[in-house]
C-alpha cells in the first residue's frame, strides 16, 4: 500500500520562460540523508536541510558563466563537484564560501553529467559518450577524450548504478528517432549497446528511470501515450557481445491518458510494485493541471494521488511545482492483493443482485420513463469515434443524456470499458469548468454500465457529493470496488446509508479518516448502527434478505472501527454514556452466548458427523454385477 504524506515546500523557484522546462537542473543527495543539493538552471547550487526547509549553504558562479550539470556530492571525499560552461570542473568543500576560489580544471571535451553514488567513485560522462573516473580525469585534465557516439546521436538521459562492487553508467541516446541504451561497465570497462523497441506512434520516451533489483538493472520508461515499459538488463550480462542488441520490454502500466497525449511526464520506480508518475495534462482534469500518482503495477491500481515529480530519494519525492520545489514523503508497504484492494465487498452481496436492483431504483427516481433506446446501429461505428460527438462538449444536459444512453446501449463490452471511462472523465471535466452544467442522468447511466471504477475517474464521486446528488453517490458506492477511505468518510459526513457500510475498505487506512468525524456525528452514526443491528437481531428469522442491506458482520466491523477511532472522545462525552453501556452489555451477552455455544461445539460436530452409515459386518456374501 502506498501512501503519500502531506508535502511541504522546500524553496521557491525562478520561473523559466517555457513551461515544460524546469527551473531546476538536478537534485542530489548529500552525505546526510536529510540534506539535498539543489542546482538551479543557471548559476546557483544550494544545500538544504530538508526537514527544516532551511538552506545550509549556497554557491554561485560568476555572471556570464553557466552551470551545465547538476552538482553532486562525493561520498568518499565529502566534496561537491559541479561543471560550468560544459568544460570546467569545479570541486569544493562545504566550508568553502566562494566557488571561484575552489579547485577547477578544464577538460578537453564537453561534459554531459557527473554522476555520484554512495559506495562508488565519481564518474564523468562526456557528451560524446566517453566515460572517465573523475580522479583519473583530474590527474590529467587535458587527456584526449574519444567519441563513442555517432554523428547526430545525442544523450537524452543518464544515470549510474553501483552493484556488487560493479559500477555502471547507463545512458540513453537518440538518433534519427531511434533510441538506444548504453550500459558502460567500469573496471573492467565494457560497453554494451541496446536498441529500444520503437513505439508504434514513433514517439520518443518522455522519461527514464533505472533501478537495481535482484542483480538486474530495471529500466523503466514512459511514452506520451501513457505506456510505462520495463526492460531488464542483467548485471552480469553477456560480456564481449559485439554490435547492437535489441532490448526486449514488457508493459508495466498503461496510464489512462484519454485521447490526448501526455505533454510532459516522468515515471520513477519506487519499489518492485510501485511506480510514481508525474505529468500533465491529467486525463480527468482540466488542461494545464498536472498530477502525481503512485500506481501499484502488480494490481494496476491507483494507490495515492496528488497533483505533480522528478527526483526520488529515501522515501521522499522532490517535485518542482509551479513556483516552488515541493518535498513529498511517501511510504510503500509490501503489497498483497488484500491491501491493494482493501477489505472486499462482502461475498453475500452478489453483483448480479445489485445489477438487478438498479433499474428499479432508476424507475423510482425518474418516473416511468422507458429504459433507454435499444436499437442497434447497423453500421458498426467504433464507439471510440462517437465519443467526440459535439453535444458532449457543448450540448444541454438532456441531449447529453440521450447521447450517452444511445452510446452505452450500442457499444460492445470491449469498447465500452475504454469509452465509458473517457466519457465520464470528459463530462466531469466539463462540469468542473462550467458550474452550470451537471448531467446526473448521463453520469448515472455510465456508472451503471459497471465499466467504471474510482481510479478511472476519481473526481466523479466528489463531484456528485458537491452537487448533493445522493442517488449517484449511492450508485458509485455500490458499484465502485476501489473507493479510497478518505472519500468513504467524506460521504459518511454528508449522509449515512446502507451503501457506505458496504463499501470495501482497509481497517488501518480507514481509522485515521474516521477520526475526522466530530463527536455528534460519531454518536449519531453509532446510534444508527445500533438501531439497524437491533432491528436485524430481532427479526433475524422472519426477515427475508433485503437487497443491499449490510450484513451483521459489516455492522459489527463498523461499530468496532468507530469505537477504535473515537473511544477516548466517547468516554468523555456525557451523551454517549447510555450508548456505550448499551454496547457493552450487548458485547457481554454475545461473549456469554458464544462461550455457551463453544461448550456444546463438540456435541454439535458429532451430530453433524452422524450420517446413517451402512452397518458392515465382518462377513457377508453379496451379489455384484459388472457390465
Amino acid at each position, binding site marked *: 500500500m502506498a501512501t503519500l504524506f502531506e508535502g511541504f515546500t522546500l524553496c521557491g523557484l525562478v520561473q523559466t520562460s517555457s513551461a515544460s522546462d524546469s527551473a531546476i537542473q538536478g537534485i542530489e543527495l548529500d552525505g546526510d540523508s536529510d540534506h539535498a543539493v539543489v542546482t538551479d538552471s543557471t548559476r546557483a547550487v544550494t544545500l538544504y536541510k530538508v526537514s527544516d526547509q532551511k538552506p545550509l549553504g549556497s554557491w554561485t558562479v560568476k555572471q556570464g558563466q553557466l552551470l551545465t550539470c547538476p552538482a553532486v556530492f562525493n561520498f568518499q571525499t565529502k566534496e561537491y563537484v559541479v561543471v560550468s560552461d560544459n568544460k570546467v570542473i569545479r570541486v569544493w568543500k562545504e566550508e568553502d564560501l566562494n566557488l571561484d576560489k575552489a579547485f577547477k580544471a578544464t577538460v578537453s571535451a564537453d561534459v554531459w553529467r557527473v554522476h555520484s553514488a554512495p559506495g562508488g567513485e565519481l564518474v564523468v560522462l562526456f557528451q560524446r559518450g566517453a566515460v572517465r573516473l573523475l580522479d583519473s580525469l583530474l590527474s590529467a585534465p587535458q587527456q584526449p577524450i574519444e567519441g563513442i557516439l555517432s554523428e547526430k546521436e545525442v544523450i537524452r538521459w543518464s544515470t549510474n548504478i553501483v552493484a556488487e562492487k560493479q559500477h555502471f553508467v547507463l545512458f540513453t541516446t537518440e538518433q534519427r528517432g531511434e533510441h538506444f541504451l548504453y550500459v558502460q561497465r567500469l573496471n573492467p570497462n565494457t560497453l554494451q549497446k541496446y536498441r529500444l523497441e520503437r513505439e508504434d506512434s514513433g514517439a520518443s520516451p518522455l522519461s527514464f528511470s533505472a533501478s537495481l533489483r535482484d542483480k538486474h538493472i530495471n529500466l523503466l520508461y514512459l511514452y506520451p501515450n501513457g505506456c510505462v515499459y520495463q526492460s531488464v538488463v542483467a548485471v552480469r550480462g553477456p560480456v564481449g557481445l559485439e554490435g547492437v542488441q535489441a532490448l526486449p520490454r514488457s508493459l508495466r502500466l498503461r496510464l489512462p491518458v484519454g485521447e490526448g497525449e501526455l505533454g510532459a511526464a516522468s515515471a520513477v520506480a519506487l519499489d518492485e510494485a510501485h511506480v510514481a508518475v508525474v505529468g500533465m495534462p491529467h486525463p480527468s482534469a482540466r488542461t494545464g493541471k498536472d498530477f502525481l500518482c503512485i500506481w501499484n503495477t502488480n494490481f494496476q491500481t491507483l494507490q495515492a494521488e496528488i497533483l505533480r515529480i522528478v527526483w526520488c530519494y529515501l522515501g521522499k519525492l522532490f517535485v518542482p511545482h509551479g513556483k516552488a520545489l515541493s518535498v513529498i514523503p511517501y511510504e510503500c508497504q509490501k503489497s498483497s492483493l488484500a491491501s491493494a484492494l482493501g477489505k472486499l465487498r462482502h461475498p453475500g452481496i452478489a453483483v448480479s443482485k445489485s445489477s438487478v436492483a438498479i433499474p428499479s431504483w432508476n424507475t423510482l427516481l425518474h418516473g416511468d420513463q422507458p429504459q433507454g433506446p435499444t436499437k442497434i446501429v447497423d453500421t458498426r461505428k467504433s464507439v471510440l469515434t462517437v465519443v467526440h460527438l459535439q453535444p458532449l462538449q457543448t450540448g444541454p444536459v438532456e441531449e447529453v443524456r440521450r447521447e450517452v444512453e444511445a452510446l452505452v446501449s450500442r457499444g460492445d463490452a470491449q469498447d465500452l470499458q475504454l469509452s465509458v471511462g473517457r466519457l465520464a472523465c470528459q463530462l466531469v471535466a466539463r462540469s468542473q469548468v462550467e458550474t452550470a452544467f451537471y448531467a446526473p442522468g448521463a453520469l448515472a447511466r455510465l456508472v451503471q454500465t459497471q465499466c467504471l471504477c474510482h481510479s478511472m475517474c476519481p473526481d466523479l464521486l466528489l463531484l456528485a457529493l458537491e452537487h448533493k446528488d445522493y442517488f449517484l453517490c449511492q450508485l458509485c458506492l455500490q458499484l465502485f470496488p476501489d473507493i479510497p477511505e478518505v472519500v468513504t468518510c467524506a460521504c459518511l459526513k454528508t449522509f449515512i446509508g446502507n451503501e457506505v457500510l458496504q463499501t470495501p475498505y482497509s481497517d488501518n487506512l480507514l481509522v485515521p479518516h474516521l477520526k475526522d468525524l466530530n463527536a455528534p456525528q460519531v454518536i449519531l452514526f453509532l446510534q444508527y448502527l445500533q438501531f439497524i443491528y437491533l432491528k436485524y437481531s430481532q427479526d433475524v428469522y422472519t426477515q427475508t434478505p433485503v437487497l443491499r442491506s449490510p450484513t451483521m458482520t459489516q455492522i459489527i466491523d463498523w461499530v468496532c472501527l468507530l469505537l477504535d477511532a473515537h473511544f477516548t472522545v466517547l468516554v468523555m462525552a456525557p451523551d454517549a454514556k447510555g450508548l456505550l453501556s448499551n454496547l457493552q452489555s450487548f458485547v457481554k451477552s454475545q461473549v456469554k452466548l458464544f462461550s455457551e455455544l463453544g461448550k456444546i461445539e463438540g456435541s454439535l460436530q458429532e451430530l453433524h458427523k452422524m450420517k446413517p452409515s451402512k452397518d458392515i459386518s465382518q462377513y457377508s456374501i453379496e451379489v*455384484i454385477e459388472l457390465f
Partner: protein
Amino acid sequence: MGEFKVHRVRFFDYMPTAIRAMAFNAHTERLALGRMDGSVEIFNFADRYFQEKVIPGKDSRSIEALCWVGGRLFSAGLNGEITEYDLETLRPKYSLEAYGGPIWTITSNSQGAHLAIGCEDGTVKLFEVLEESIQFERNLDRQKGRIISLSWHPSGTQIAAGMMDMIRVFDVPTGRAVQRLLVDRGFGGSKSRETVVWSVVFLSDCTIISGDSAGKVQVWDGHTGTLVKTHLVTKWDVLALSVSKDESSVVVGTSEGTVIQFQFIAPTLQQQQDKEWVRTRTFKNHTHDVRALAEIETAIVSGGMDTQLVVRPLLEKFDERSHASALRKIQFPHRNLVFCAKKAGLLLFQFPGQLELWRLGESDGHGKPGDSLPLKRKPEKLLHLKRKGEDHICCSALSSCGGWLAYSTMSSVRLYRLQTDNNDISISKVPKLPKILRSAHQLCFSSDSSKLFAASSQSSVLVIALSQSECKYVHTLKPKSGSRQPIHLMTNSVDGKWLATANSDCEIHVYNVQKLKLHCIVPVYGSCPSAMGIHPTTNNLTMVHADQQIFEYSIVEKQYTDWSRKLQKQGLHNLWLDRDTPVTHVTFNPKNPEQILLHDMHMFCIIDQSLPLPDQKTQFYNQMTLRSLSEQERPSHLHAFKICKTFQDLLSVSLLDDQSLVMVERPLLAITCQLPAPVRQKKFAT
C-alpha cells in the same frame, strides 16, 4: 459381463506395526524403513515407491535407527547390538554387541568410513567400516546421561550429540567434548522433567539444529555454542529431524502427527543476504507420533506410530502434474498375505507371529445385484498356528486342495498336512524335511499338490516332491543370469508344466518343471513386476509391473502375445497409469478364458481381452454409465477394463472354483481403531 457372488471378508485382523526409523539412500534411491517389530523394508523410490524387499523381524531385535553406508545397511537398537543386513539373502549378515547398553542412534560420516553410535551408558562409540564387517575403534569422552541422537559435521571432524537437557559437541580426532549447549526444560509442570534431545542435525556452516521433548526446535551456533533461535512448535515432543541435501530446508516431525518445514531464507525480499531459519509449512498427514523422517529431492517422507508411510511431494519442485507430484500413502505391503485354496474354499492369513486358516461361509439362494444373501453357514476359523522360535514368518502357502500348508521363517521351513472331514480338522507336521530346505523367500504348491516350490538364495528354486508318506528333494532350478537377488514372486501353471519366478533385478524366469530346466527368460522390463499369473488354458504369462504396465507373454511361443503388443502400441489409459497402488494379484477365470482378474488396494478389475481397448478419450471408469444404458446401447460403450470400486482397502481377491469371488478387505478405519490413543490435543471448547 455378468453377475458374481462375492464373499466379502473383513475378519483378517491384519495390523501393520509402527514405523520407527528410516534412512534414504540418495544414490540408489532406496528408502530403508525400520518397524517396531524389527522388520526392515526397502522401497525403490525410482520405481513408483515399490516395496522391493522385506527383511522379516525377530522378537529380540529392535531397531532404533537405520543408516546406509554406500549400498550397505546398518541398524542399531535397544538390544545393544549393531546389525548389518544382507540385502540379497534378506537376513542379518551379522550382529555385534557394542557393550554400551541400549543403543539409541547410529549414523555414519559423510565419507562412509566410520559409524558412530550413541549408547545408554553415555558413550559415543566409533566403529571403522571394513570391507566385510565393522570394527570398534574407540570411545569419545564418556558423558553422564544417555546419548539419544547424533549428527556428524559434514567434514567428519566433529559430532553433535543430543542428550538429556543438553547437546554436546565432540571433536572427533581428540575425542574431547568441546561445546556444551544447555537445552531449556518445558514450561509449567514439565519443568521438573528432563528434556530429551530427540534429534540433532549438524550443518556444514556449523549450525546445529535440535528437536526436543519440550516441543522446541532450536538453532545453535556451533562455533560459539550460543543459541540463535528457538521455535516452539508443539506442546508435545519434537521427535525427528531431517535436513535436505543442500541444507536449505529442515523438516521436523512431532508427536501431534505434524511435519513442519523450516527453510533457510531471507525473511524479507529486501535483505537477501540475511538468511535465517524460518518456519514455513506444516503438513498434517499422520494421526500419531512422526518418528521417522527423510527429506529427499522432491518430497518429504514421513512415518510413525500410525504405521503408514507418507510421501508428501514438494509441489514447487514440479513443473507439471504427474504421479510423482501426488501425495502417496503406503499402508499395505506390496505382497500377498492372504492365500486361498480355490477348490476347498479355505483362506490362509499370514501374520508375523501366526497363521490363521478359515473356512468361508455359505449361502443358499440367489439374489439381485446389490443384495446381501442370507448366510446358511458362518465363516469358521479352523486353525490358529503359532510359529516356533523368535523369527517372524516371512512367507507361507496353502495348496489349492487345502491339504497342505507350509510356512518359512528366516531359520526354518515347516510343512503341515491338513485333513478336514466335515467339521473336524486334523493337522500333522511333516517330519524330516530335506536338509537343503532351510529357509525360503517364497513358497508355492503345484496345483495338483504333488510338489512344493521354495524360492531360495540367489534366485534359485528348490523342487520338493510331496507324497503321503514322505517328502523328497528333487532338484534345484537355477537361473542362467547368475543374479544374486531374492525372488519375490512365484507362480505355476495349472497343468503343472511351468513355473515362473520374478526377482528384484526385474528378471522373470520360466522353468519347465517336467524337464526340470530353464525354459526361457522374459525380456527384462525396467520396472519391477508386482504381480503375475499363468493362464490355465493358454499358458500365457500375464505380468503387471510397479509402473502399472501390463504385459502378456506366451510361454510356449516364447514371445509377447498379439494382445500384449496391441496394448503396448495403443498405450494404457492415463487413469490406469495414474493409480497409486500396485497390482498385487493376477488370476484368471477358467470358465471364461478371455478374462484376467486383477486388483490393487482401491479397485478390482476384470480385463476382457475380447473387447476393444480404451483409448485416452474413452470414459475409463464406465460401470455407472453402462448400468444406466439400455441393453441395446451398451455394446457400443464397452471396453476391456471393467473396474469395480465397491470394495476398498483390498488385501486379496481370488476366484474360487465355484465362480464366486473372495474379496479380503481390511478397512483402514479398523487399523486406526487399534492404534493407541494419540496425544491429547485440546480442541476448541471441549
